């Protein structure tokens, strides 16, 4: 993806609301055909950013370039981009067909070609042709998603924006639609820019992810990079359950963990590191027969266990600290609650972050 020319570039884009910077000096290139997701908690500025990209808000300073052309002041109806809204914003007084045909009608296409295109899009999105004359409000949540996406595709945009369209949908359907959306991305070969507060959702679909916090992009990378090499504690915790130990670097090159009292072998230490957090994902922790079986080991007590479908998570209390350990169901730990256990991990599997 990286070698493709950027279709959309942000140069120090900033949006002020009064004295508050909702979006703060963002630089970003999005490549042609990429599925790029912006992730962040609510209030991180991701919606404001998307509205600027779509042309519903203008940046206070900085430039937005579409294929090198400055589009800061181009209104939404003149931009070759289209947004799928959180509420979907379907036209409730129109049928499925009329909704999909809306951009074509606006463009002045004749009814026959409009209908042909609408039916073609309904086919692509696996909406039955009989839905053409159905009132959108009679459609189910998942069907409405597809209608909204079909309507956006009918506009034939160069970039499609998504403002958390799946957030109001129940878990099971959301999982299906995430995959469908990625399939649609493959079929249409268009650039997708998606925002969500769920990094899990972002991971499933995206080519690259940008994590936002308080108006700034904290990290941009592939899902794999974000997962395995988060650059801050914020990003690491965003991915899901994670063990975060406050640590300081001792003169002998080992890490000291105040919470557990342990002295630990570090992963590669960043230049100038003295204090920070050691991040260990639950699946990299394992139960040990003896402390010498891993680079690092701590002893504690098995406090509880949670079944997470294919995996089981164990809570181990070590001193004042709590560790989450995850095993696949097939490799479930045989210990009983309140057993004394030793858990450990290899130095290379942990990540040191300063923030």
């Amino acid at each position, binding site marked *: 993806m990286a070698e493709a020319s950027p279709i959309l570039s942000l140069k120090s884009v900033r949006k002020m609301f009064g004295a508050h910077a909702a979006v703060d000096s963002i630089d970003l290139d999005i490549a042609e055909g990429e599925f790029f997701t912006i992730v962040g908690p609510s209030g991180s500025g991701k919606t404001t950013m998307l509205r600027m990209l779509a*042309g519903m808000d203008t940046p206070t300073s900085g430039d937005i370039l579409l294929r090198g052309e400055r589009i800061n002041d181009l*209104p939404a*109806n003149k931009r070759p981009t289209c*947004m799928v809204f959180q509420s979907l914003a379907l*036209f*409730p007084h129109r049928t499925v067909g009329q909704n999909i045909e809306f951009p074509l009608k*606006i463009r002045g296409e004749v009814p026959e070609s409009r209908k042909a295109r609408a039916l073609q899009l309904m086919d692509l999105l696996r909406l039955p042709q009989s839905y053409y004359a159905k009132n959108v*409000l009679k459609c189910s949540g998942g069907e409405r998603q597809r209608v909204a996406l079909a309507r956006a595709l009918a506009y034939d945009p160069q970039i499609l924006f998504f403002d958390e369209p799946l957030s109001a949908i129940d878990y099971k359907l959301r999982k299906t639609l995430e995959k469908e959306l990625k399939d649609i991305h493959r079929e249409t070969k268009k650039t997708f820019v998606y925002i969500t507060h769920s990094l899990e959702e972002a991971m499933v679909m995206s080519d690259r992810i940008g994590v936002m916090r308080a108006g700034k992009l904290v990290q941009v990378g592939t899902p794999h990079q974000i997962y395995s090499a988060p650059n801050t504690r914020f990003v690491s915790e965003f991915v899901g359950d994670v063990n975060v130990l406050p640590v300081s670097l001792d003169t002998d090159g080992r890490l000291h963990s105040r919470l557990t009292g342990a002295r630990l072998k570090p992963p590669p230490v960043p230049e100038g590191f003295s204090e920070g957090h050691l991040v260990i994902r639950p699946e990299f922790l394992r139960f040990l027969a003896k402390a010498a079986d891993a680079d690092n080991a701590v002893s504690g007590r098995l406090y509880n266990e949670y079944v997470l479908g294919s995996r089981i998570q164990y809570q181990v209390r070590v001193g004042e600290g709590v560790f989450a350990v995850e095993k696949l169901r097939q490799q479930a730990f045989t210990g009983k609650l309140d057993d004394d256990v030793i858990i450990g991990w290899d130095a290379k599997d942990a990540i040191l972050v300063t923030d």
Partner: protein
Amino acid sequence: MRLSQGGKSAIPVVLFLIVGFAAPLLAVIWFSFMPPRSFSFGGAPTLENYATIFQGTNYISFLWSLSLAVTAVALLALVCYPVAYGLVRVFGKWAMLLTLLFTIPLFVSENIRLYGWVLFLIKNGVLLGTLKSMFGLQLESILFSLPAIILGMVYVYLPFMLFPMTLGISMVPNETRDAAFDLGASRWQVFKEVELPLSMPGVVIGFLLTFVLAIGAIAEAKVLGGQRVIPITHDIEIAFTYSQNWPLGAALSVLLMLVVGVLVLLALRRFDLDTFLGRR
């Protein structure tokens, strides 16, 4: 027969509706079948009153009432939609103040307000007197003419069109507007394709409300029209008072209710509110 909890709770309302709504209505309907110029419920039922109406000239008053109401409603729609749109979308913090200004006159009796208009429009009154003494302009007064009646009706019924319309326009979700715009629609297309149809429930309610009120209007024609035009309500009043023919008045009232009822039902069938609201 045992009543459910809800049924028991409804008894006071049902009694109130029977005494306050159904009984007077039935009394009027029954009275319209009594012999002319009788004053009791006990006479032999007859269709004589209706025959009198269809043979007489009351239809002229009916037509006047209808055309006045239709004209007033049409003008109200043209005047109120832009104002309502402004109140919801444009005026921002001033909307509250404007809403108040539109509401306050409702606290003053309609007759007093109409006499205010008389003072304003009358020859040598507020408007023409000022024009004459300040600019030496001598203009004809529109008072006691058809335009004055329509002006009065538009003025009096304005809030009843404005507020439902305001509600209708405020019900249009912002994101559908944004979405239409984002899909390439111009401002005018957004209005035509999305805002107007989605605000129709409010518009239709405003139409019905003002139409029903305007067809029952009487004071405007009397005070501002100087009785140049006799609406059907005036005929009814005369039947009940001056000519002491209650059964005839009752028959006219029943016919008026029928005409209004049929028209409203037709309108509701044409503009199904549920369809507009997307419930069907």
